């Protein structure tokens, strides 16, 4: 009896977490952390500050998004040359858009939101309201179906260049 009790208690220690984990694997909402391990740091392309799109479609390796690594004494550096036409601010913007895509599309369509404020800051635009209005106005072009976050960023920067109100309030380094 005592032996069985012990076995039961031991299993009891394992089962609930195992069960919940099995539930998670059965396709229920899997925690993002499992899909996107923050451990897979890497920086690539165009020297420091460039981005590598991770193994899953539309996801980004985090450290690149933070420019030059996170500072934890564990980052690998690889080399590459794509998307070097955007400068540091542009690369940061592209990786931010990629990592926050679903909310960026929503807030650009609304013309307001935290991601709008963040991108305005990254692209050195002082007037977030004008920035939001113009992103909304040019939504169809900037977030056209099928283009990636790099291209979206290029189009945003082109919009800034070609819109007088934005050009004057942004000092985006090209």
């Amino acid at each position, binding site marked *: *009896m005592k032996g*069985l*009790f012990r076995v*039961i208690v031991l299993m*009891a*220690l*394992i*089962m*609930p*977490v*195992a*069960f*919940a*984990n*099995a539930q*998670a*694997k059965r396709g229920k*909402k*899997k*925690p*993002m*952390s499992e*899909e*996107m391990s*923050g*451990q897979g740091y890497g920086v690539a392309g165009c020297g420091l500050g460039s981005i590598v799109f991770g193994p899953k*479609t*539309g996801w980004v390796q*985090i450290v690149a*998004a*933070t*420019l*030059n690594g*996170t*500072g*934890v*004494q*564990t980052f690998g550096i690889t080399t590459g040359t794509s998307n070097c036409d955007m400068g540091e601010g542009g690369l940061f913007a592209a990786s*931010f858009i990629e*990592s*926050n895509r*679903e*909310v960026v*599309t*929503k807030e*650009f*369509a*609304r*013309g307001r939101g*935290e*991601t709008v*404020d*963040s991108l305005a*800051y*990254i692209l050195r635009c002082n007037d977030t309201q004008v920035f*939001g209005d113009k992103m909304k106005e040019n*939504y*169809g072009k900037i*977030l056209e*179906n099928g283009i990636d976050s790099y291209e979206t960023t290029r189009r945003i920067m082109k919009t800034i260049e070609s819109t007088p109100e934005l050009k004057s309030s942004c000092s985006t380094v090209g």
Partner: protein
Amino acid sequence: MQDDGRMLRQCFLIILLVATVASFARAASSAPSSAASAEARVATASFSSDLKRQAIARALELKLDERLEWLRLVHYRKTTLSGWVSDIDNPLYFVSPDGQRDPRAELVATLDAGFEHVRLPPAIPQAPAMTVRCQYPARWKWLMRELAITDPAPDVCPELEAFRGRMRPSSATLVFSGYYINNPSSIFGHLLLRLNRRERLLGKGSELLDFGVNYGAIATTENPVLYALFGMIGVFKGNFTPLPYYYKVREYSDAESRDLWEYELNLAPDEVERLVDHLWELGSAYFNYYYFSKNCAFHLLALLEAAAPRLHLIDRVHFYVMPADSLKAVAHEPGLVAKVHYRASTLRQLQARYSTLSSDEKRAFLAVRGEKNPVEKTASLEPVGQARVLDAVLDDIDYRNFHDLVFKTNPFVTEKKQAVLSARAQLPVGEELKIEVHDADHPELSHPSGRWSFAAGRASDADGSTTALDGEIRFALHDITDPLDGYLPYSQVESWLIRGRWWSERRRLELRHFYLVRAASLAPLSWVDKKPAWRFDFGVDRVRDRRCIDCLAGRAAFLGGASVEPLAGVLLYALVGPTGETSADFNREKFLLSAEGRIGLRYRISHFWQIDGEGEWRRVFDRETFDRLSAVAKTRFDFGDAALKPWALEFEYANEAGNEDFLARYLRFF
């Protein structure tokens, strides 16, 4: 012959000469390049070694190795035999080979290596080899200050400076993410720290661009059984990793629809500086991860205590700790929390948006959210109304399909969202969404995690009734009858729940049940989603019927069903499912399967008074199938402030397959 030999000798001598010169040249180049600086180095070296000897002597005289600041910076804990051991389990982390258990040796080694400008071997493979000043800036700064020494030869630390430049915080914020029952590592919530960038004081950018500091385990197995076991017994390594805060917001707020509560901390500028430096130090540290005790809740407190030695937060929590406990330790420290900010999950935003819709708009929203083309159906509304409805539709699409959208696994949903977005972009900018936060929602005001109770009354068994005394202890966390403040409504998680009974006339003391986990979600069906209600039990229960005269059986049950809220405060639910039980003392089959059904009614009459009842039907598939009915009816009165040590009185009638109990119970939280 002789000529060849001579030539050979000459060649040999030339090679020897070249090799010697080359090796000297290499040795010279690995030291600072010029002769002048080599001389200067010799000069400072002898000055340094005097200073070093003085520093070490003074440090030992002042007993700096016994000081709280030092012990906390190296994460030393007292052992039972009044020694010390560091929580840091990476043996390469320490400067001294005895560093993990000897604070004095570590301190002396730190000073020694520091003054000698020794490049320490890296503690983790990919890290560069750094000197003490660059690897342990927090330690060094503190030592120099305590010893009143102006560092004569500071090192240049490019990686450290780059890190400091990227972090540049003006303050830190403790972030609590709410309970999430679908992920075992998040059942009890999660805690992380956010470093607030200096520029935000000028209103630049948003919190999303700040750095979050996360402590978590590195799981090395996907096998669920091993994952659970290893996570609990310290096989996994845990470490601190900085991540962009937006990553955490997307993970918690969007993917898992959890609310985030952000507590801005009042830390002095030098404490914030030490926090950043100490984080840098911890970059090469790992700790053995223990799910119940040395987890994120513990290590974040340890981090804060290392940065601000005036704080004594770990003293306030139990030996086992969960995120809400740590949060409360911080919140109850006078003056530590400057302000609280609530960040609503997608679900909450959706619910808030829905409540701002007019009745026409509500009808439109409910009609269109399932439609392939919601835009067409809203055309009859005014543009401002259309915008409101489409904003709600967008939040709804995100809430229900976040994973599919991010990983592009459902083209239908992706296309639908794009159509709604294009339409939304043509409509006017809407009003900012304002979400009401009630005091009662604050997690730091929730009831404590532990609860014990004592009951007295009459209980009966096959031989009649007798006086009974029950004692119960539950280490975590919350059931539906407990005070609601700060918890998810309709959700319950109980862990380490043990009840014993003393039958006085029978002179019998017994274990009534021990549940390792008892969890349930009884959220009523609502317009938001039609999630089923469920319940999961895992533990050991006492059995007295045809299965055995009197024994303990291991029990696992998983029930599913539905619940509704017909009137405010009234909950009605029905659950059904299989139960497995096993005991060596069962009369016939040792492992029995049963079908279990439960029906329950809860009525929360007021904040202070509630009644509830539950009936259970069990069909046990033994060699002879038999049925078993039980029922419980309770009424409960809660007293006191949930945030302190509230207590309650409960009166219970239970009927277990004909055996009746009448009990009066006193419950108290700890």
